[in-house]
């Protein structure tokens, strides 16, 4: 695992990785302006694992798109590492989407090095870096496979490697395991925690699964239905490393229950 050293773990836990102030988003719908998000305040300290949950259409994805610089907020500010995010910046924010965002015409290693190709990094350097990332996500030796030759879980490992290849301090994940079967999903959650602990990234993770949320998070942000607001911030003080056995504990159940109440009440 000597490759991990290249990832420059950031130990300055006190600094703020992502700072969202008074964020609002209004989009033009068929019957005029539709407010999607209103007055979102969010502070994510460096190295934290934050999970956002909420009912469908609560603007979780809108929020993530704005954090990624893919959509412009109507009001409010987003700071990442102290600077605004106006356009996508993969050296500060890596994004992992739902399945099927890998390019099918590129092999796994070519997919991972794609952001470096865009930056016109030298071939040897980017190939070495991509191989190291594949190694990190447990896919050493699979670099030459095309996406259709990989299982759903392996594809998402490649996506994570691609999100990490430029060593961004922040990793955004938009329901990355939603399309996987339950067992693969559990394994992938566990793997993600391993990668997160090895790399000390700040992770903002969106999911529909409350179990996944409690299992992964330091803090769960509960959002309301449209217009999306933050209803609750639930600190998850389960010890780390997390284990599957924790899911059966009363503490785990109580946390999940608390989140479920909030979501159910607004529906």
């Amino acid at each position: 695992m000597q490759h991990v050293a290249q990832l420059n773990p950031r130990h300055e836990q006190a600094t703020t990785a992502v700072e969202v102030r008074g964020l609002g988003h209004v989009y033009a719908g068929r019957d005029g302006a539709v407010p999607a998000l209103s007055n979102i305040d969010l502070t994510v300290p460096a190295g934290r694992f934050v999970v956002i949950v909420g009912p469908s259409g609560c603007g979780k994805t809108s929020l993530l798109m704005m954090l990624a610089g893919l959509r412009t907020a109507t009001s409010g500010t987003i700071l990442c590492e102290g600077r605004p995010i106006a356009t996508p910046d993969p050296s500060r924010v890596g994004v992992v989407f739902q399945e099927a965002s890998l390019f099918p015409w590129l092999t796994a290693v070519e997919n991972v090095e794609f952001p470096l190709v865009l930056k016109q990094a030298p071939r040897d350097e980017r190939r070495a870096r991509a191989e190291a990332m594949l190694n990190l996500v447990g896919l050493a030796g699979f670099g030459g496979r095309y996406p259709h030759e990989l299982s759903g879980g392996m594809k998402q490992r490649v996506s994570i490697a691609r999100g990490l290849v430029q060593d961004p301090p922040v990793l955004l994940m938009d329901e990355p395991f939603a399309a996987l079967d339950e067992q693969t999903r559990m394994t992938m959650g566990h793997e993600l925690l391993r990668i997160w602990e090895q790399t000390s990234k700040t992770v903002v993770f969106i999911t529909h699964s409350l179990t996944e949320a409690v299992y992964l998070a330091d803090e769960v942000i509960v959002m309301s239905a449209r217009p999306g607001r933050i209803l609750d911030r639930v600190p998850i003080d389960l010890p780390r490393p997390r284990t599957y056995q924790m899911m059966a504990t009363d503490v785990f159940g109580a946390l999940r229950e608390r989140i479920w109440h909030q979501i159910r009440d607004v529906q």
Partner: protein
Amino acid sequence: MNRPSPRTVRRLIGLLLLVAWEAVPRLGLLPELFVPPLSKTLTVLWLDRAIYGSALMVTLYEVAIAMLIACGAGILFGAVVGGVATLRHLMLPVFSSLYAVPIVILYPIFTAWFGIGSESKIAFAGVYGFFPVMLSTAAGIRTIDEQYLLAARSMGATLPQLIARVIIPASIPTVLAGLRLGGALTIIGVVVSEMLTSASGIGYLVTMNRTILDSPRVFAAIIVVLALSVMFDLIVRAIERRTLVWQTAGRRTASPEPVTPARLATV
């Protein structure tokens, strides 16, 4: 006991057809005016090889230029119409309707404009092959998975990079399907227009020999056209195999590698 492979069956059917072609007229089941025996047809093809050869050169030349026009203009127009939303809404319905028009009724106009030489065939076949190429290029660009574009933008792709590295590779399969159809229509266009009005080319040989009831020579010309179409198909297939490696890689071999427990562990 094992079943013959589809390929063997195909070859057998082909062989049977050739045998029938020889036997049916020889046995007097059909008059030789309708179907001359294969051997007789091949004999006149060999005897008149100089005539057929020079006619083929004329046809090939017309097909080559017409294909260049159809594919070049088709891809260019298709890319612009498929890529620009306003143009697409304005023009795509028009082009789709035009595709349904039997363009061969316009051929007399082409002869009036370009004469009865090669120019009118090239122009006609070029227009004939243009539509499928243009429509499928437009469709290929329009139907690119939004997720690919989003992922590429999140990795910091600029517009030129988006076009070169995502839009073009993603639309290649559809464009190739259009080129295949467009190319075939170009061959048809050239041969049909040669049959209608001309003094050279394979199509002319068909019409000319038909009017003097020389069936073997008509069928000899048909064999040449068949060979031309098959050649074209083989070339397109070779191109497809080469450019679409990523769609088929690893699918031929039943089990590429033994599955070891270590491999299974990586989900």
